[in-house]
């Protein structure tokens, strides 16, 4: 039907309303930085000019659940905080996604103690995991792009929670590598592995 319309009226593109809304939604994902620890700093870096998630239309941070699509949990969640986080999630309007950022949030990390929840996915539907301590901003952006692709389909029924994992990328293209030998120093005192950018 739409083809017939396009034939009769040149310059008009036919589509469904869902597709148009999905396309708009894709480039206006508003995250809430639920930053409880150091991963929040890395998220701030990804919002700043060097990485700039404004390029993906996700720079509008809102600190109220009513205005957000993406719950980005960055940092460890304690047992005192978890009921707050759950309530926050329930108050968000559909469509909504949950990103579990960093090792502490996804599994408790090194904080295997009485006070820290061992992975928020025990109590919340997590759609995207960003492993790392902390994950690099590139990883956050890659995860955001995966969410964007889902944003297109938000009107349709997508099985949830999604459980996507964005792995850390340790390979750096040759033209982005720093010059000289400095960058090939061991990355950590005890680890001794050589990683790009130390």
């Amino acid at each position, binding site marked *: 039907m739409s083809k017939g319309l396009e034939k009769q009226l040149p310059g008009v593109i036919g589509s469904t309303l869902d597709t148009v809304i999905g396309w708009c939604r894709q480039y206006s994902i508003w995250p809430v930085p639920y930053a409880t620890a150091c991963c929040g700093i890395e998220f701030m870096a990804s919002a700043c000019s060097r990485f700039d998630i404004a390029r993906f239309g996700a720079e509008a941070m809102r600190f109220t659940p009513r205005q957000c699509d993406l719950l980005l949990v960055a940092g460890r969640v304690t047992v005192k905080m978890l009921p707050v986080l759950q309530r926050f999630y329930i108050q968000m309007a559909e469509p909504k996604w949950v990103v579990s950022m960093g090792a502490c949030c996804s599994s408790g990390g090194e904080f295997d103690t009485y*006070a820290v*929840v061992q992975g928020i996915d025990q109590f919340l539907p997590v759609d995207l995991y960003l492993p790392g301590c902390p994950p690099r901003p590139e990883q956050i952006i890659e995860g955001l792009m995966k969410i964007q692709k889902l944003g297109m389909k938000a009107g349709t029924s997508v099985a949830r929670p999604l459980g996507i994992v964005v792995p850390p990328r340790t390979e750096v293209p040759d033209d982005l590598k720093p010059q000289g030998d400095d960058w090939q120093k061991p990355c950590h005192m005890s680890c001794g592995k050589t990683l790009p950018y130390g």
Partner: protein
Amino acid sequence: MNHKKSTFELLSEKFGKENFDEVAYAGGMTTIIVPKSILAEVVRFLHDDPRCSVEQLTDIIGIDYQGYAQETPSRFALVYPMLSLSHNKRVILKVWVAEEDMTVPSLTDIYRGANWPEREAAEMFGFSFEGHPNPKRLLLCDLFEGKHPLRKDYPLQGQGERESFRIVDRETS
């Protein structure tokens, strides 16, 4: 003001030498061990006396010595690091507290800043501070009512507190 006398000597002069013990560390720092019964008077003296004039109570730290390598006088201890701003001098007091009698005099009428550190120590170790104006728990949530997580016999992974939440899923939210 007598510069020659240390805080330990001043306290020994005032309250009797047999009451105190001094442990020295590197760098000239000493810890003065005070019996629990005269703690409030000692701190009052340190605060009021111009030769000491300890204006600031920095922190209150509880210690559980269960399973400690060396033998200790009792299971628990409280450490009071204090600072004299006018003399630029630190005083560290230590009080041994037996497990059977965890009552310790509160310092809130001398230092108002003792309020929260005492509540924290009471919550984490189970001390009971006598004369505290607001002896409620401070930090942990209601799941830890009556539990003292920093005691050595408390399991590190907790007693199931971190697993005892409802599960929010897509259907119920």
